[in-house]
């Protein structure tokens, strides 16, 4: 029962925060709501025995990405944003489409038949520790995507420099 209550809280608050993120007039407020959301997500990860990812979530997302957002917002110094309309003119269509798609997805996810269970039971992971379990996978079986991820980051770095550097 308790986990369900906790989940209910998280679900409600996360949904609320998400809505706040997309509705705030001031981007800074959005970012702040987003950070709040990320903390909640990290908590959910903990719920699901993914401590390492919960940490990454907070460090990387809340710590790095969102700060990057804030930097940019500050850098761009968008004062007129406060008075400009928040939504595009056709927003009802957008909302309708969004709701439609949620409906379709929720409708379909109820039919999910979970696949066969794997070998990483909670006990196994706890024995290995989560970070090690993930790490060994990343450096053995998933070393190739791992390398690609490095390239992705490299491109991101190069790209960001190329695009954002001044003349």
């Amino acid at each position: 029962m308790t986990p369900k209550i906790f989940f209910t809280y998280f679900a409600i608050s996360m949904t609320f925060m998400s809505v706040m993120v997309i509705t705030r007039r001031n981007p800074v407020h959005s970012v702040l709501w987003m950070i709040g959301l990320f903390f909640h997500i990290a908590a959910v990860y903990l719920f699901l025995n993914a401590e390492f990812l919960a940490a990454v979530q907070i460090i990387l997302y809340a710590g790095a990405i969102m700060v990057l957002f804030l930097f940019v917002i500050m850098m761009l110094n968008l004062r007129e944003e406060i008075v400009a309309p928040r939504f595009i003119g056709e927003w009802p269509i957008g909302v309708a489409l969004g709701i439609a798609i949620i409906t379709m997805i929720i409708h379909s996810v109820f039919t999910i038949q979970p696949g066969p269970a794997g070998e990483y039971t909670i006990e196994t992971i706890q024995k290995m520790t989560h970070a090690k379990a993930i790490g060994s996978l990343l450096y053995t079986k998933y070393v190739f995507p791992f390398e690609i991820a490095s390239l992705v980051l490299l491109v991101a770095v190069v790209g960001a420099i190329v695009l954002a550097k001044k003349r």
Partner: protein
Amino acid sequence: MVPLSWYICLSAVIFGIGVIGFLVRRNVLIMLMSVELMLNSVNISLIAFSHYLQDLKGQVLVFFVITVAAAEAAIGLAILVALVRNKSVLHTDEITEMKG
């Protein structure tokens, strides 16, 4: 025990909110954040699946998603900076130089 479907529904809802945010906000920054929202919702469902399937592939993927999200944020913000430097707008309905 919380059923798997609850997580998936939560993920779907947040995904949907992300979609709506992407569809209705004029501000490019918020749109970018909506995309992040969508990615996070995917992460939730991946980890939930991973947990319930007793398999770590989903979590590995989450790891990569977070990496890519970071890269995307960097590139996206860089593009935005370049754009705003040229033409200080960041509302989608003002970025319609090309159409038709």
